[in-house]
């Protein structure tokens, strides 16, 4: 029976959180970065996830899964934090010129939930069940979110 899982859980010794940090810090930060676009915040989200994991190490059966969930939740918190900051009044606004592309613009219009499922599917190459596990939702909900997110992107991006 062929195995399909493209990203099987990596066995990690219980005392090797430092090794896990070396191996997974960058992939997790890359995931955080595609969701936040902020390198410093991404690094901090991942560091925070590792510190939280360190405090719960004995109780975590699947460290990589735990990290993914922590990073996704951390990015969600970051977006709420940013949204609050943006709603706050500012005395002066600096005009920023940035180079963006259609996909970035279209992704920015999606909800965080939709951006998260797309990143987990098309960046992390996770299947419905793995994404459902990370987001604590049903696989059917994963599919519907992906479907809706792609549909919205198609509206935004001329094909």
């Amino acid at each position, binding site marked *: 029976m062929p195995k399909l899982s493209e990203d099987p859980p990596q066995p990690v010794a219980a005392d090797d959180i430092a090794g896990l940090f070396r191996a997974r810090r960058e992939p997790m930060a890359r995931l955080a970065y595609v969701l936040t676009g902020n390198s410093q915040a*991404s690094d901090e989200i991942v560091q925070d996830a590792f510190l939280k994991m360190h405090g719960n190490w004995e109780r975590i059966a699947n460290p990589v899964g735990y990290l993914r969930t922590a990073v996704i939740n951390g990015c969600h918190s970051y977006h709420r934090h940013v949204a609050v900051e943006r709603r706050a009044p500012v005395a002066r606004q600096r005009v920023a010129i940035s180079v963006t592309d259609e996909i970035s613009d279209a992704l920015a219009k999606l909800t965080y939930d939709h951006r998260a499922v797309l990143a987990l599917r098309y960046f992390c190459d996770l*299947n419905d069940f793995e994404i459902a596990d*990370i987001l*604590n939702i049903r696989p059917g909900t994963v599919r519907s979110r992906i479907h809706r997110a792609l549909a919205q*992107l198609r509206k935004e991006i001329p094909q």
Partner: protein
Amino acid sequence: MNTPTLEDQLRSHYVSKADELRLPPLEFEELLADSDRGVVVSITSSPRGHRGSWWVAAAAVAAVAVGGLAVIQGRDTPSNTPAATQPSEQLSPPATASTIGLFPAGDAAAVVAQAYQTPASVATAYLADRTSGANLPTGYTATATTGEVVTVDESRALVKFFLEVDGDEGTDSSDGIVQVEQVRDATGSTGWVVTAASVVTMEIKDLSYIDGHLLGNFASGWGTTQLTVLDAATGAVLATRSGTPAPPDAETPPDQLIDVADLAAPSVVVRAWRTPTATFSETLISAGQQSVVGGWTPLAALAYPEQQASFAGSPVSALDSLAMGETFKANTPVDVTVEASKAGEKFCISASIAEVSGSGCFDLEMIALGTAAISLDPDASERVLVAGIVPDAVISISEGSTIIQPTQNLWFMVTDAQPHSFNIANADGTKAVKLAIG
């Protein structure tokens, strides 16, 4: 030259974006040391801590919203810190020990007065009431459609229904059963009353109601379960609690402890809505009863009696041997994937055909029935894909001259979209169940 698909564009975008990231060198020991010195500034909440905070907040809101009502306690997770159980007798009406069912409420005379003369009519009215806005979790709408009526005996029947729930997560649907009974008043007039209802697979275990103390376990499942205890005679809410999401790293969803003291109602109803899954259940219990099992299991036992003599005890060897999270795929003309769930107690089957996909998760008890299956109708009712999980004892799934042998506990069939009845049988045919599709 082919235009890249949107999915391919997304993959390229993510890789390109991620390549922009540059991280400064850092070892975990340094991170820990910095953390001890307070250098690391966290901008996030712990997944566990965040959800715990949310849960406690939700419980507090519920307690405030219902005033002096009792709060149903939870357990098994750090976040499920039991809230104080408060007496609720001031809200209970004087005892009227003659309440019969869930709907219409009241004694035999009250039921007969409502004049529901058929199982279908009372089930339809009941479901319309329970799917009305006031009885639904906030933010959800629901529609229930009644279907087949199964006669149990001369005074009992079951009405199957189909529930669709729409909320933030999209639309979800499930099968359900309403149990109805015919009652007779002092004059000999009759009417029908709903006595239990559940959507697959909402379960309640070991419910007891002794000396005003309601105690039991509710299988919470994944998602958020909103529990309510009501006076069966008046419909008054006696206790409520909402917001019990299982933490993402929990191996199994915790049961919810129902623990409400100092109840004065002669009969109470335990109602549960779980979201975002379309799941609902109501169970009635009267003072003095104990070890009551409610929810889907007892109703399914009545609705599908032929399935009770199924394949209990037969293992599901091929799937049992899967590691957690491992998947395998049948090499078939259609894409069929099966994956063990994270809890290790449920197995999920996912199937797709012509870009239409669906999935279902089943515990071992359901798989032992032999009828754990999903069906997909991909193209305007021309074809249907049926895929199922069976225990080792099942060696054939047949319909007429078509016989399928399961492969490693899996079977599937693509056939015309007409009603089908598959015979699922063991080696010598001594055990067999029917699976009806369409």
